[in-house]
């Protein structure tokens, strides 16, 4: 029987190639994602391992919060520099080095802020090479207050050399330093595209911290000393609040935080891989259904000469498994190539990864093959079951007997599935469980796909009416063709339906988000100018900016916005700080109760949503834990209406600065008399990392950010739409093949090739539009449900982008027209005599 399977497969190469393509694309996505994230993971692990390779032990402040935000390391307090001497004197310690890090960003000779693609970092340079991860490749170590060493990557790219001056953006005013040396990081020019500015320790302390304070102390143990013993000895000498850990622990923590971020990245990509495969499964299901239909006589003949039902079932599934296997293997290969491509793309963005080859874990192959083969086989089960139901008599009888599942059964299953899907969706959204939402969406799609054949005929007829009018006879026959097998029409359109449903849902989501962002700015900010960073990984902007801006003539009032993390009731929260002076001029705070000015005596403001959910009112006390100062019982001084700029918790700037280390403003707000944008921009020429925007521009920036995100999602969803399109091409090809005789007859009675092509195209457009209409309806519903279920200030408005949805519809029709190209050509090329003679 295997021989029959194999031979059958070879005989249907063409029709299976298109099916295989769907699997190839899906598996490519999966394996590419795995290879890329594994490679990135490996790269970062190596990098971080290298940074702490020489560090045996590290003394540092204990973590202040129980939780960290994703991709971040724990918040710790600085430790006194005097500990260096204490630790140095512990037996077994060979050397110690003080470590201070902070924000330092180079300015290019053209006056632009340099962002290496991986951000910018400033550190203290440790001249002791036995502990430092950096090593000089030219020049000397920084010693004086104006000395800096630069990473070789930045030096090469911007043509800096030893002895040259360079401007550096800092938390305080921008300063000019002299490059005394160029450093490399191991063999790499820099750390994953991050620019490095390293200063002598006192300089670093002055620009990043306070004198006498360190972020950590790196410790080298004497050779032969037992690290654990030394660790205990040091721990015994340091005050509480300081912990001593191994270099490996520090490296592992940092690797973990990067893995968390990478995990989100890879999960997001895998979701899209899954979507592609899900759409692909419909295509496979459809292809196998059609193939089984076309092979009815052959399968019946096999049954006559003695093939058992099981053999027929296995034969169809075996065919599917083989198709799945071959396409998965191809997909794996292409995935690796795609990862290569992505790595190249990263390099083009300036993220140079240190020499490490692509990582291909066995897991990548196992998951890729299992998913690829699994999806194909599962999709082929229903067609295989139908193949089993073929009775031997079908080989000889003219009429085809009961191959369709009874309408009622399909309706019931479809209806139940759809209902379960809707319930899961609703529950998933209510409790914010995305996996549940996903399963619900899958169930809804399956349910609708099963119900679709029941309304395919009338809908196809309706959509086809204008086509029949415009294209004449070919249009009418095309319409009839699309109506005569409602099941096939529905199945083919289902794939496109899913693709368009997702696109439409995202478009509703995006439109709502855009509208929310716009109104958020309108309802939150009253200042004329908003000064903030460009968003290139900087932790904030210089705190010298506000004093500078406030002195520009024409600037009336200014305000500074800070934000930071605090812990409230065991969860990490964002707190915003703002000055109570000029508050009403710069920010729109609409109070429900209490008084906004109360923050000036250390009170806390909360928004109405938080007040509701935590059951708080003016006068209540809330425990807020700050990393620097510990738990503070804060009085709620007022409750304001939700405000996108302020978030949920607001304190005064003075309070904030007293409770946070290294606090950098995130924005400066200014009101002006008339248009002072140019004047302010000119005044801030020394700060090329900031952007001075009017309210409208700020709004536009926010909208652009949303548009960028949407663009990315659309691009990823495009794959699913392409697979759906392949499905349409496939069905049309199979239909043309099946109707060879009929087409021959039409040609024989005088239909021109052009008319044949028109007929196939009309059918294709109807298929595409059917999928699109259903998809857009479902998608809009999904999108609306999604938006209304997300209870966030960022998503306060609901909007259905009707023009955009109409564009999708038109695009779908065009795609349908495009999908018909090849099948139409093939149909038109059929030789009349051959076509009629075909058995």
């Amino acid at each position, binding site marked *: *029987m295997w*021989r*029959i399977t194999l*031979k*059958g497969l*070879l*005989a249907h190469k063409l029709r299976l190639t298109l099916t295989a393509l769907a699997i190839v694309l899906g598996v490519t996505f999966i394996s590419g994602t795995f290879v890329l994230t594994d490679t990135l993971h490996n790269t970062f692990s190596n990098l971080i391992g290298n940074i702490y390779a020489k560090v045996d032990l590290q003394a540092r402040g204990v973590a202040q919060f129980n939780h960290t935000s994703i991709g971040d390391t724990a918040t710790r307090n600085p430790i006194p520099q005097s500990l260096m001497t204490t630790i140095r004197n512990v037996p077994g310690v060979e050397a110690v080095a003080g470590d201070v890090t902070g924000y330092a960003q180079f300015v290019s000779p053209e006056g632009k802020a340099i962002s290496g693609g991986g951000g910018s970092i400033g550190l203290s340079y440790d001249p002791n090479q036995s502990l430092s991860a950096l090593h000089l490749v030219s020049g000397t170590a920084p010693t004086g207050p104006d000395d800096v060493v630069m990473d070789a990557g930045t030096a090469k790219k911007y043509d800096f050399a030893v002895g040259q001056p360079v401007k550096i953006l800092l938390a305080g005013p921008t300063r000019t330093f002299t490059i005394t040396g160029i450093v490399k990081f191991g063999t790499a020019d820099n750390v994953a595209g991050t620019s490095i500015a390293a200063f002598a320790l006192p300089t670093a302390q002055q620009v990043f911290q306070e004198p006498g304070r360190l972020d950590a102390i790196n410790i080298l143990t004497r050779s032969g000393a037992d690290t654990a013993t030394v660790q205990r000895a040091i721990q015994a000498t340091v005050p509480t609040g300081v912990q001593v850990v191994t270099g490996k622990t520090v490296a592992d923590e940092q690797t973990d935080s990067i893995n968390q971020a990478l995990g989100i990245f890879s999960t997001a990509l895998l979701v899209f891989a899954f979507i592609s495969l899900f759409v692909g499964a419909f295509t496979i299901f459809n292809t196998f259904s059609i193939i089984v239909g076309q092979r009815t*006589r*052959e399968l019946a*003949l*096999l*049954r*006559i*000469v*003695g*093939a*058992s*039902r099981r*053999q027929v079932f296995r034969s169809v599934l075996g065919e599917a498994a083989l198709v799945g296997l071959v396409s998965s293997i191809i997909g794996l290969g292409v995935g690796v190539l795609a990862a290569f491509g992505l790595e190249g793309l990263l390099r083009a963005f300036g993220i140079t990864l240190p020499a490490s080859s692509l990582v291909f874990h066995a897991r990548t192959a196992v998951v890729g093959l299992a998913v690829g083969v699994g999806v194909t086989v599962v999709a082929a089960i229903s067609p295989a079951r139908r193949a089993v139901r073929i*009775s*031997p*008599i079908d*080989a*000889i009888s003219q009429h085809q007997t009961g191959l369709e599942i009874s309408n009622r059964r399909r309706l019931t299953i479809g209806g139940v599935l759809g209902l379960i899907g809707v319930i899961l969706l609703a529950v998933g959204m209510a409790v914010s469980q995305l996996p549940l939402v996903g399963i619900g969406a899958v169930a809804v799609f399956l349910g609708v796909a099963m119900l679709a054949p029941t309304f395919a005929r009338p809908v196809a007829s309706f959509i086809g009416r204008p086509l029949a009018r415009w294209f004449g006879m070919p249009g009418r026959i095309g319409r009839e063709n699309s109506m005569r097998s409602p099941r096939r029409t529905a199945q083919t359109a289902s794939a496109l339906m899913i693709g368009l449903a997702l696109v439409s849902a995202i478009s509703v989501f995006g439109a709502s988000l855009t509208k929310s962002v716009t109104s958020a700015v309108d309802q939150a900010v009253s200042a004329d100018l908003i000064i903030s960073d460009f968003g290139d990984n900087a932790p904030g902007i210089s705190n010298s900016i506000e004093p500078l801006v406030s002195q520009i003539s024409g600037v009336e009032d200014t305000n500074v916005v800070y934000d930071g993390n605090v812990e409230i009731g065991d969860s990490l929260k964002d707190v915003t700080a703002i000055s109570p002076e000029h508050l009403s001029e710069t920010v729109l705070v609409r109070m429900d109760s209490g008084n906004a000015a109360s923050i000036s005596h250390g009170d806390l403001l909360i928004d109405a949503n938080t007040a509701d959910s935590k059951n708080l009112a003016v006068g209540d006390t809330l425990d807020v834990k700050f990393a620097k100062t510990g738990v503070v019982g804060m009085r709620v001084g007022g409750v304001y209406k939700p405000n996108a700029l302020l978030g949920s918790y607001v304190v005064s700037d003075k309070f904030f600065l007293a409770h946070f280390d290294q606090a950098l403003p995130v924005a400066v707000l200014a009101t002006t008399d008339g248009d002072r944008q140019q004047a302010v921009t000119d005044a801030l020429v020394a700060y090329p990392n900031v952007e001075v925007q009017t309210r409208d521009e700020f709004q536009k920036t926010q909208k652009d950010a949303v548009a960028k995100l949407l663009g990315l999602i659309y691009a990823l969803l495009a794959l699913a739409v392409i697979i759906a399109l392949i499905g349409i091409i496939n069905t049309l090809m199979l239909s043309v093949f099946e109707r060879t005789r009929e087409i021959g007859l039409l040609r024989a009675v005088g239909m021109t090739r052009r008319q044949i092509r028109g007929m196939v195209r009309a059918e294709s457009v109807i298929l595409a539009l059917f999928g699109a209409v259903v998809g857009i309806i479902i998608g809009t519903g999904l999108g609306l449900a999604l938006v209304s279920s997300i209870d966030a200030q960022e998503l306060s408005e609901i909007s259905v982008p009707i023009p955009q949805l109409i564009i999708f519809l038109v695009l779908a029709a065009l795609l349908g027209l495009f999908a018909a190209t090849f099948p139409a050509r093939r149909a038109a090329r059929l030789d009349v005599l051959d076509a009629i003679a075909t*058995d």
Partner: protein
Amino acid sequence: MTKQEPAASPAAHAIDLHKTYGSGPAAVHALAGITVTFERGHFTAVMGPSGSGKSTLMHCMAGLDRATSGKTYVGEQDINALDDTGLTQLRRDRVGFVFQSFNLVPTLTAGENITLPVDLAGKSVDREWFDYLVEHLGIRDRLSHRPTELSGGQQQRVACARALINKPDLIFADEPTGNLDSNASTEMLGFLQRSTRELGQSIVMVTHDPHGAAYADRVVFLADGTIVGELKQPTADKVLERMRTLGT
């Protein structure tokens, strides 16, 4: 090979076979109570006009279709008692088929088509028997060809070889010459006749060609779902004459 001794049981027989399509006043009685016996080692032709039920009779007796009532036996086996697996095994091991058209799996070569029932059963091919068949049918040089590369006559000979490969108790041939030219028909019928006379093969052939029927040992005439006559040692003229008297 010599003619086998007639065994105790016939190759196949049916008792009071009914097959009804539809129900109520619209019911069509394709078989209206047929009792018939096909002797072992005999070549029997079933004749009758279109719609007389001859194909239905064959389908029911071969286990391809279920009769509405009545009993059918292949050898001693009551085929109504068999489930799908049993019927599959029956078809594979004890019954051979030759049809008018679409006899071969298009993706397999002639040789593979011949051994298909054996392969499906997971048994090994009796090479001697295979060689004997392809030699006698004159298809040795066509074995590696696909069905589309064979003439109609060659295809039918391949189908014959396949029907015989398992040495079945009985071969059902449904209009085997219906699509063949006269030369190919003569060859095919001659071969069927020889396999009965020389190998003792039992054959039931449905046909409406009097010349074809003349190759059989016995002709059974059907009309409107019942047996209306029988003729032993037929000739084409006798068959024609009988059909005329039956008004067909």
